[in-house]
């Protein structure tokens, strides 16, 4: 019997329930799991907490879920490219919580690697010493940042094998490896899926031990293409 983690998007995303916390890969378009997000939209799941670096841009990625009113809370590092999400936050229809980008990634990693949290001096000048949890190590003050995990991670990879071993490309890696470690159920979409043994063990970016389900991207349409407004004009 040969094992395979390959499933359809509908099968893979079935366990995603209202009220879930989803870790969503991507920095802007690259690495955003459009196929899996499309499935979540289609199946009507709501009351979601999303953790993603940014809010994508209007009409794209997680912004579609936000626009459809499916998201109550977004944990991110920068939502500047999505005025729509900013407006919804102003209107009290979306709760946005921001962290410095690398600290958000480290909080998620800590959750994934079984740590309780990290000690950081980033942004310490903004803390209220009375309200914050500060500790001193080696004569330096640090703030305790608790680990952050999700119920489900939605991950985009360039290539996967049927065992769930993943390869990323370019700037599409971003939050994907950290998030693929930090959820109870890890669902991956990949542009290409190969047989076990087709990937060089040295060239796997994230071992399949972390991955539960793998989905083949069937339509690599406009969601995965070049956004003309971010390209130089000819």
């Amino acid at each position, binding site marked *: 019997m*040969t094992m395979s983690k390959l499933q359809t998007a509908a099968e893979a995303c079935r366990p995603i329930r209202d009220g879930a916390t989803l870790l969503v890969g991507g920095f802007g378009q690259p690495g955003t799991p459009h196929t899996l997000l499309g499935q979540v939209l289609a199946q009507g799941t709501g009351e979601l907490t999303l953790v993603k670096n940014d809010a994508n841009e209007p009409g794209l990625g997680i912004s579609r879920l936000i626009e459809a009113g499916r998201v109550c809370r977004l944990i991110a590092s920068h939502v500047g490219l999505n005025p729509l999400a900013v407006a919804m936050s102003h209107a009290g229809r979306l709760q946005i919580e921001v962290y410095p980008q690398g600290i958000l990634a480290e909080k998620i990693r800590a959750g*994934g*690697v*079984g740590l309780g949290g990290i000690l950081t001096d980033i942004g310490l000048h903004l803390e209220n010493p009375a309200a914050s949890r500060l500790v001193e190590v080696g004569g330096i003050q640090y703030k305790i940042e608790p680990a952050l995990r999700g119920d489900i991670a939605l991950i985009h990879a360039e290539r996967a094998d049927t065992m769930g071993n993943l390869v990323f490309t370019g700037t599409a890696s971003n939050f994907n490896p950290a998030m693929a470690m930090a959820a109870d159920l890890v669902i991956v979409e990949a542009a290409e899926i190969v047989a076990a043994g087709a990937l060089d*063990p040295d060239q796997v970016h994230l*071992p*399949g*031990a972390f991955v539960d389900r793998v989905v083949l991207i069937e339509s690599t349409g406009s969601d995965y293409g070049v956004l003309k407004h971010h390209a130089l004009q000819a």
Partner: protein
Amino acid sequence: MHYKHRIAQRAAREIRPGQNINLGIGIPTLIMDYLPEGQQVFVHSENGIWGMGRRAAPGCEQPDLIDAGAAYTTCVAGAACFDTLTSFAIIRGGRIDLTFLGALEVGQNGDLANWIIPGKMTPGIGGGMELAQKSRRVVVLTTHVNKSGAPKILKTCSLPLTAPACVGLIITDLAVIEVTGEGLRLRELAAGVPVDEVVAKTEAQLLVPAGQLPTF
């Protein structure tokens, strides 16, 4: 069959298809020879392999591919190699379904002591503490008594613990014993071993079910 192999053979029956497993030093490494054929199991080696295969055949060793005990090993199709950070992310992140470990002592509440022998300098815990504490299930493989003939399965461990209340099942040369909420329950006997002998050689209280017990 040598008792170590009989323990390993019995231990292999605890493995379910698709599980991520880790094999500690000693008897656990022998399980490699008894993995169910044609059933996908992912063997993790904490020095950086997921999908470890059997030991390298003589003359086929790759200098940069060893197991956690320094023996030359191989990868199966679908394996991945990685660094220590990733390897222990798998362990502490709760992705190891089943770990087999040796023991100096096991307490009746599942406490495990397998790293410090009093009066000797400890060589260090290596990856054992994280494996014991964070694997979803820990199965101990050990002789029932130590070299002096004293029981290893105790009411309370006397040695410093590797991890508290972590053991789910104990497989020895004499018996299979389950750690339950009510205490240690005798599950199976090694062929030819009477219940009385197991009870006599176990310091902890044993719950012995009525009727015939399966043998292995």
